[in-house]
């Protein structure tokens, strides 16, 4: 480990922390009653969209109508994206003349992007036309992120409102999130990426003659525009198969830090938005602090594990120390321009959020490093998480935490002025159990059936980790892969699609039900017996609940994979 590496990580953390408050304030204005500075510019577009779609923005919805609107919207989106992928061969903007993709892959890809997962069982540059990338993938990246933020805002309203039967209007929240938040930031980020060397063109792949005198085809396309939303949306689906390890997606160390910041920006800001909307920014900072602590532990663990190098190579007297000419450590699967620190930072940001973009091959991480990446996703992506999904996931843990605290002292639990009843608790457990049920259940099935085992390219615990990682990533709507799995098969395409579907919608529905239930309740003024949820004590308690409830659910599964692989590596056995 080097001081420059730690400085890079600290710089990232500082920028993210500094952005949280102003961006959180902006989000509160976008979703609140106050106008934003962009209102004069975007307002007419917004009004036109409402008129064309027949939406009355002043009419709010109950939680059930909000949920039905969301489900109808995503059902239409899934069918539309599936159809586009199946018909791309007959559509324009296809300079390479790519044909339609198979039914199971189209279904997997459609569900993947509608659920904000971006699991990719294909190579973007050789499988998808420009039309599919721009109209299909990129559009769904915007809409799935806006939908996630809408759900988070609905939950915040549930906490903030008193005796209300409504939690907002889904169509309005979706539209405002897209127009006022995602589009403006993406325009700025795209221009920055273009300046740094990311291509943005509709021209076909370039054909060049290399220095060796041989012809080479260099894939390119509308990369910068997709790259910006890929990161900001927590989507992570790259234009290229190599994702952000491709120099056209993440060309420089500067873009590396900016891309990592974009991954965290909205998730971090939403904690502050929560604090503002419930009337106490300290409540938001507590959530942010819990996320920051978990992030710090994760990135330190990965950095230390990767910088330590491979003990098997050390035994062969391979020099893995840092020097002026070598980055040192375990550089397998990592880009030299990012080094260990830049790769560890991006991997932590990618798996702690729901983004899933990669600038290094997670498959090549050390067993402990890979185990931390898995653990990040296993705690339900609450370490910043995706836009919206991170906050509502964290609020589920808050409900569990105050409930447990209430049991200890014999009081009805409260959180930010709302009494938490048994129904909210049941719904929170339903939401929290959906992801582990999908992950562990489908992993178990894949480990014992022939189509599941046939896709493995690694043996032993590492092969098992490949399967576990795939379902964990899918159910947590992350989308990153260990890459040791040949997952483009009907079995994996369909079962991973199921995991993504359950991980997204079987969480969102109970979360919105909780929002509706809380909104209908009155606010309870704090009393002498109220657990202060804006103090360090609650912060520690919440941390404990996340680690125990979220982490220990998966400990046996982790023990069979990365943990046993680590000890076998120390014994000189490799997989």
């Amino acid at each position, binding site marked *: 480990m080097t001081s420059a590496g730690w400085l890079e990580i600290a710089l990232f953390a500082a920028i993210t922390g500094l952005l949280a408050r102003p961006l959180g304030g902006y989000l509160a204005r976008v979703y609140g009653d106050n106008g934003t500075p962009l209102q004069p510019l975007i307002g007419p577009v917004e009004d036109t969209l409402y008129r064309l779609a027949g939406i009355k923005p002043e009419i709010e919805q109950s939680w059930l109508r909000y949920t*039905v609107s969301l489900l109808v919207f995503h059902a239409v989106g899934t069918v539309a994206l599936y159809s586009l992928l199946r018909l791309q061969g007959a559509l324009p903007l296809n300079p390479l003349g790519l044909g339609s993709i198979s039914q199971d892959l189209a279904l997997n890809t459609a569900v993947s992007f509608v659920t904000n997962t971006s699991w990719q069982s294909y190579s973007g540059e050789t499988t998808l036309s420009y039309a599919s990338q721009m109209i299909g993938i990129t559009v769904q990246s915007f809409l799935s992120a806006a939908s996630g933020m809408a759900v988070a805002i609905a939950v915040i309203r549930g906490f903030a409102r008193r005796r209300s039967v409504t939690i907002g209007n889904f169509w309005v929240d979706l539209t405002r999130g897209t127009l006022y938040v995602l589009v403006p930031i993406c325009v700025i980020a795209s221009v920055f990426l273009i300046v740094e060397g990311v291509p943005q063109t509709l021209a076909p792949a370039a054909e060049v003659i290399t220095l060796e005198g041989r012809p080479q085809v260099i894939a390119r396309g509308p990369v910068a525009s997709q790259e910006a939303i890929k990161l900001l949306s927590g989507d992570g689906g790259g234009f290229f198969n190599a994702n952000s390890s491709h120099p056209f997606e993440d060309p420089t160390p500067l873009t590396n830090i900016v891309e990592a910041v974009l991954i965290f920006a909205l998730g971090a800001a939403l904690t502050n938005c929560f604090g503002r909307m419930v009337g106490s920014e300290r409540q938001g900072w507590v959530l942010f602090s819990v996320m920051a602590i978990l992030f710090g532990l994760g990135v330190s663990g990965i950095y230390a594990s990767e910088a330590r190098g491979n003990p098997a190579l050390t035994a062969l007297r391979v020099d893995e120390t840092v020097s002026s000419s070598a980055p040192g450590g375990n550089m397998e699967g990592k880009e030299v321009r990012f080094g260990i620190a830049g790769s560890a930072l991006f991997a932590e940001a990618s798996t702690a959020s729901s983004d899933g973009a990669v600038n290094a091959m997670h498959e090549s991480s050390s067993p402990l490093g890979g185990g931390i990446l898995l653990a990040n996703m296993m705690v339900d992506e609450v370490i910043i998480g995706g836009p919206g999904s991170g906050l509502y996931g964290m609020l589920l843990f808050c409900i569990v935490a105050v409930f447990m605290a209430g049991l200890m002292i014999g009081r009805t639990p409260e959180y930010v002025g709302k009494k938490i009843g048994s129904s909210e608790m049941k719904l929170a457990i339903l939401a929290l159990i959906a992801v582990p049920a999908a992950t562990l259940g489908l992993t178990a099935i894949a480990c014992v059936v022939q189509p599941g085992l046939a896709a493995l390219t690694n043996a032993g615990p590492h092969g098992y980790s490949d399967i576990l990682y795939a379902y964990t990533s899918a159910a947590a709507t992350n989308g990153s892969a260990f890459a040791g799995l040949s997952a483009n098969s009907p079995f994996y395409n369909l079962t991973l699609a199921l995991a993504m579907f359950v991980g997204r919608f079987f969480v969102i529905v109970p979360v919105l039900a909780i929002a509706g239930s809380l909104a209908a309740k009155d606010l309870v003024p704090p009393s002498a017996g109220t657990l202060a949820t804006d103090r360090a004590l609650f912060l520690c308690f919440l941390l404990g609940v996340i680690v125990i409830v979220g982490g220990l659910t998966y400990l046996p599964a982790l023990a069979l994979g990365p943990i046993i692989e680590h000890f076998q590596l120390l014994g000189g056995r490799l997989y």
Partner: protein
Amino acid sequence: MLDAIMLTLVLASFAVVGAYASLCEYLLGLDTDEDVSP
């Protein structure tokens, strides 16, 4: 044919989530909490 099966699968899945929403509504209706705070 396979396309029709896939699209039916998609719509059926969303219908299941809709039914799941009804279950959540039912759970909310069961709330008989009493405030146990002193």
